[in-house]
């Protein structure tokens, strides 16, 4: 059970909301364009607010937050910028997987990321050494350390300075660019001796559930912006929201956002939420650009960025078609006598 009181929880959520609105949203375009100063400034504030450590116990400088409360915060952050929300999620998931002894050595403003070793990656362990490559590890570029996590195995924590680890910026990254992606090369990297934390096994579940929360935040932002624009923009002598072609889209967007996030502590629930919300986010953000018309296709409104961010949520940690396969496999495992 979390030690956080309802009042403290409400305060934290409000803090995240204000931070997203006042600090992240105004810098989102700059971070998307690759402004490292804006990125570092935002991350420093994230660390100062304790958001990246929020799931840890107080003895490790955390807020001892429950997962559902943390996901609510991640969703609020995504209204400001999906990439920063992802960095917070990756960091929180990574720190949960790191052994308590090693946690003591990590600085409060350090940025660690959980790197899923799944579909499309190529990593092996031979004779206690890691070999291979992960083509696009979101958030890994510039991170202080990585936690490699594969389903059914204990995560492996590696400081960025470890010999045999190379992180090259993935310049082509299309979405969630405030969580800068890197291609990760592991060349005969010695597997650290420290065992990971018991909570490490849940880190991937957190990642799936958190991606759903980010997608929902991005979609809410897109819907809000589209609604506001539709009331202000006139065509045919009336606000465009008076045209069914537009109001239908806005209503459908709202309907897709009415379902709350599930208490995603269960893998199947997390997978299902990720599939549902990331598919919805792609549809909602694509329609938001459509409501804006040509203006939405241009960088200035920030709506096309939401569409790119949402698409990356659909592909991360694994594409939804892989997630659907995994979901059915889980259900069959549970149904088996």
């Amino acid at each position, binding site marked *: 059970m979390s030690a956080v009181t309802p009042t403290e929880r409400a305060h934290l959520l409000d803090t995240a909301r204000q931070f997203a609105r006042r600090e992240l949203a105004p810098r989102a375009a700059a971070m998307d364009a690759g402004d490292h100063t804006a990125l570092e400034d935002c991350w420093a504030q994230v660390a100062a607010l304790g958001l990246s450590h929020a799931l840890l116990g107080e003895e490790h400088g955390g807020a001892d937050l429950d997962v559902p409360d943390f996901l609510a915060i991640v969703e609020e952050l995504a209204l400001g910028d999906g990439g920063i929300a992802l960095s917070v999620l990756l960091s929180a998931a990574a720190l949960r997987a790191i052994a308590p002894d090693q946690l003591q050595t990590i600085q409060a403003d350090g940025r660690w990321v959980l790197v899923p070793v799944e*579909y*499309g990656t190529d990593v092996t362990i031979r004779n206690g050494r890691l070999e291979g490559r992960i083509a696009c590890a979101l958030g890994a570029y510039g991170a202080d350390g990585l936690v490699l996590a594969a389903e059914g195995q204990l995560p492996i924590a590696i400081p960025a300075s470890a010999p045999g680890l190379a992180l090259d910026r993935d310049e082509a990254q299309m979405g969630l660019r405030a969580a800068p992606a890197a291609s990760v090369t592991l060349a005969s990297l010695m597997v650290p001796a420290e065992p990971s934390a018991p909570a490490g096994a849940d880190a991937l579940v957190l990642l799936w559930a958190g991606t759903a929360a980010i997608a929902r935040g991005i979609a809410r932002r897109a819907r809000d912006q589209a609604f506001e624009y539709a009331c202000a923009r006139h065509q*045919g002598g009336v606000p465009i929201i008076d045209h069914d072609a537009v109001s239908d889209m806005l209503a459908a967007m709202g309907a897709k956002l009415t379902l709350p996030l599930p208490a995603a502590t269960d893998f199947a629930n997390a997978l299902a939420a990720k599939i549902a919300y990331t598919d919805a986010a*792609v549809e909602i953000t694509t329609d938001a*650009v459509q409501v804006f018309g040509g203006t939405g*296709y241009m960088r200035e409104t920030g709506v096309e960025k939401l*569409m790119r961010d949402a698409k990356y949520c659909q592909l991360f940690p694994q*594409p939804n078609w892989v997630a659907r396969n995994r979901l059915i496999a889980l259900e069959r495992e549970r149904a088996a006598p």
Partner: protein
Amino acid sequence: MESLRAHARDFADGEVRSRALEIDRRCGDDPRYFDWDLVRAGAAHGLLRFLTPAPAGGAGGLAMQASVVMEELSAACPGIALIFGAHALGMAPLLLGGAAHWEGVLSGLVASERAESPELMACAITEPEAGTDVEDPDLLRRARISTRARRVRGGFRLTGTKRFISNGSVARWLTVMMPTDPRRPADTLTCFLVDARSEGFGVSRVEHKMGQRACPAAELTFEEVFVPDRYVVGREGDGAPETMIVLACSRAPVGAIATGIARGAYERVLQWLERDPAARGLLEHQHVQLELAWMQEEIHLARQAYMDAATEVDATLGGALSHPAVRALGLVPASVRRRHAVRAWLESDLAREATVRLLHRTTDERAMTRALSLSSLAKAHCADVAMRVTGAALELAGLHAGLIRGELEKLWRDAKLTQIYEGTNQLNRLEVYRGLSHRETIRCLPPLDRVASDGAKV
């Protein structure tokens, strides 16, 4: 047609495909970047004159030729395809202006290609406060039009701002729609041919686009830009029906752009699945097989939709463009057509009127409405196919697919614009309803009797 397709494919495979990502990146960093080498290379393949009438030195094509070229180029890079498509769009109103422009701008464009210094065209319709409104004759009546063409001695002076104009910052010549009376835009919209070197013409900004970046979208300002009478395209006040005809001609090729995007994504992901070691085993999944089959279906049906539309447009307008009288005029040596007296006649009100009458003799409003509706249907359908197929291809590949991921992401970004330009898909579908479901006749032809702004019947 197959020769044109082969030329387009040669150009796409030889020059475009390998440079598409790099040009997209450069334009992402600096939207004013423009690759003239590609234009020169495309011109050498005849891709700037497939629409140019034969007497002016071109291939004399229309919607079908444009569509074939657009699909081939878009499978490699829709942004680069759009450079050539927007050039053809800029030229389209001139085709409706009859022979008046053969010896002026059109033959000049061909000459510029021969001199290996090709000039481009653009078409300027959209305004900051009027996007959808200027692409529908009924909405146009209530549109917030902020541009104006003011009659002066010997011509007009154009004032105002046009927005999102493809090729707008690089075109030498633009066909520009502006009303002579902004209070009555539907009745007074007029097409003007504007030289980008005119005093008062300016490019106020070039947009940072999400995709199709190789072709710049510009905001253009007109500050009392003078346009002589001879550069009024068609008759004064015929801009609204001319816009509808131009859209009928251009929406099938936009459908072809979208189909090419979908095809490009399908071909790339299939090649990746078949050849890349990182994708080993994926083709064994039934999900992957079904997705690929579904993509094939969608692309095939999309192609059918735009080809049906292009066939209909060409049949509807072809009678006027290849009428014996027009062909006979084409047989007159260019040196004769260039003579002052002949040109004066071709540019006269009488000749403009004759062009309109010819259009009415060879087709009618109902046929034109059907052609417009089928083009709108193709555009909206193909654009949705492009979005769905590129999205699905990207999902099959995932984030770890290496280089192909960047190409698929680009095509996905590129695809979105096809749902927006040439009228949003929603507007296009309303025109499908009006023209096909409701069997309404949309006013697409210039009226036979027109009253000029000075009250005289022309």
